[in-house]
């Protein structure tokens, strides 16, 4: 209606430009819709054949065209959560260092380091992981770990470069910048009054940080974790190189496994049958749904909780 009014007022330029801008804005909605539709449509063969049971089936028989997705969903969630377990605390530590401890110049340098860490392409991490990090972990990290915790099934079996273990570590390095950068922004946004009040009471820096800053920044940090989890779940190339792409539910971290993204990348080029391709696209659809749920809840969480920070006087 607005447009017509402007047209009538003899200002067609504004109307046309606004129309164009709206059109391009809407193109984002259109493209996202098209992505969902295309995945849904191309996976119809597999969805029709296996139905919902694909979600809890672990079948894997390419020649017989029988497939299940459970082991890949499991692999994705386990590696992503494992990576977050490693990267989460370290990321907060970096953020704390950058905001509370580092002088401005150091802060800038470390900021550049973190950004560069985020910029290195996934496939380079894969190459590095398989030829450098894997052997390193197997000769220096795995033996002491197995000496102490080797009785757990989680740490049984010989260490190999191609393993869930290496994959989790690589994934942790890859999501570390996400956790660190967002946590830093969130922690920096905590008002200084929060810190000063605590310090004025005679608190040490750690007490100030853990009791006045962290509670205040909690929701934002949880959001950072969730976004990192989404990234980890969708990460493809590094894992496709490292994890071994064995379609089974692993019980030991030193086993080989597969994630949804890695199995798609590893098998797409030589997927012989239409059913196989359709199943891989369905895996993509499931992956899409999972990352979408993680991402949307992360953003909603940050949006809703951030409006009323906990901590401070109401804690």
């Amino acid at each position, binding site marked *: 209606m607005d447009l017509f009014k402007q047209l009538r007022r003899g200002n067609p330029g504004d109307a046309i430009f606004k129309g164009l801008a709206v059109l391009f804005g809407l193109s984002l*909605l259109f493209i996202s819709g098209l992505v969902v539709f295309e995945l849904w449509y*191309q996976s119809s063969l597999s969805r029709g054949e296996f139905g919902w049971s694909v979600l809890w089936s672990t079948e894997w028989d390419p020649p017989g065209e029988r497939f299940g997705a459970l082991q890949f969903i499991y692999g994705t969630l386990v590696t992503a959560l494992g990576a977050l377990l490693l990267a989460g605390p370290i990321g907060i530590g970096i953020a704390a260092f950058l905001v509370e401890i580092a002088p401005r110049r150091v802060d800038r340098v470390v900021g550049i380091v973190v950004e560069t860490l985020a910029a290195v392409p996934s496939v380079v991490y894969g190459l590095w992981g398989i030829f450098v990090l894997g052997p390193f972990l197997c000769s220096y990290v795995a033996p002491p770990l197995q000496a102490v915790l080797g009785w757990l099934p989680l740490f049984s079996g010989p260490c190999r470069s191609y393993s869930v273990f290496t994959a989790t570590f690589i994934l942790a390095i890859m999501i570390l910048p996400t956790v660190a950068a967002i946590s830093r922004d969130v922690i920096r946004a905590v008002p200084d009054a929060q810190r000063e009040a605590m310090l004025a009471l005679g608190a040490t820096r750690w007490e100030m940080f853990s009791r006045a800053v962290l509670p205040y920044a909690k929701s934002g940090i949880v959001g950072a974790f969730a976004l990192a989890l989404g990234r980890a779940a969708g990460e493809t190339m590094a894992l496709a190189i490292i994890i071994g792409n064995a379609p089974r539910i692993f019980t030991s971290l030193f086993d080989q496994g597969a994630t949804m993204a890695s199995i798609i990348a590893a098998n797409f080029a030589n997927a012989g049958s239409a059913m196989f391709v359709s199943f891989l696209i369905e895996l993509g659809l499931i992956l899409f749904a999972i990352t979408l749920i993680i991402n949307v809840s992360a953003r909603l969480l940050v949006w809703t909780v951030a409006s009323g920070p906990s901590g401070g006087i109401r804690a």
Partner: protein
Amino acid sequence: MTTRLTDVTSNYRRRKLVDSVMTGVAYVCTAVAVAALGFVLFYVVVRGLGAWNLEFFTSTTKYFGEGGGIANALYGTAVIVAFAALMGVPVGIMAGIYLAEYGENRLGNVVRFVADTMTGFPSIVLGLFVYGLLVLAYGFHGFAGSVALAVMMLPIVARTTEEIIRLVPDSIREASLALGVPRWKTILRVVIPTAMSGIITGVILALARVAGETAPLIFTILGNQFWNTDPFSGAMAAVSLFVFEASKSPYEAVQQTAWGGALVLVLIVLVLNLTARFIASRGSVR
């Protein structure tokens, strides 16, 4: 009396100790990140430089035996990223203008939310999307890869453009409007030029993001050991895709070439990032 006093001092000593331990932990966390980056860059540079020679830059990719280079892959990456930018950048900037100038309503919020969610789309999913959209009908070709990368760039460019345009002070807009310049001309001739350096920064960062991307290319350009200069038909090579394929090779020489390719990728990404940082630091808005 005396006992209470020692209690207090020992308590204070304990708190001090916890404080210094935690400070140390923060230092260690940062050291881990710096060490990881150093470790990665060191190996990529050392092993990559070992692969760099004339043959590496002039001959085509090989998955078997000795030798081989990345000439065709380098060409593929350049062409594919260029076409991606040609599509993703204008659409992204226009979407950013929409969000900043006309997006203060419910529809704008929806578009903003969708754009944010799109940045979280796994890149492999975008590859599958373009596979269904283009490859099934027209076969593997370079342009399909560009489409996938363009979809990746789109939300990044849109959101950074929006943020930069928001930084342009309203007084500049008002000055232009007060002179009788229509709104659209104000946006194109006054707001955009003011925000230009920021927009370029965003575009370069988006380019850096997609230049090393591999997952969407598997299903769209497939990879090719030979020269294919036509992005509109036939499988093409790209540096990132070659590194992926070569990393699985048992041949020592092929692995060596993969390290060389990895160094090329890292350099491209780092140079783009530094350029963006340089432009941003000299920018007119920021």
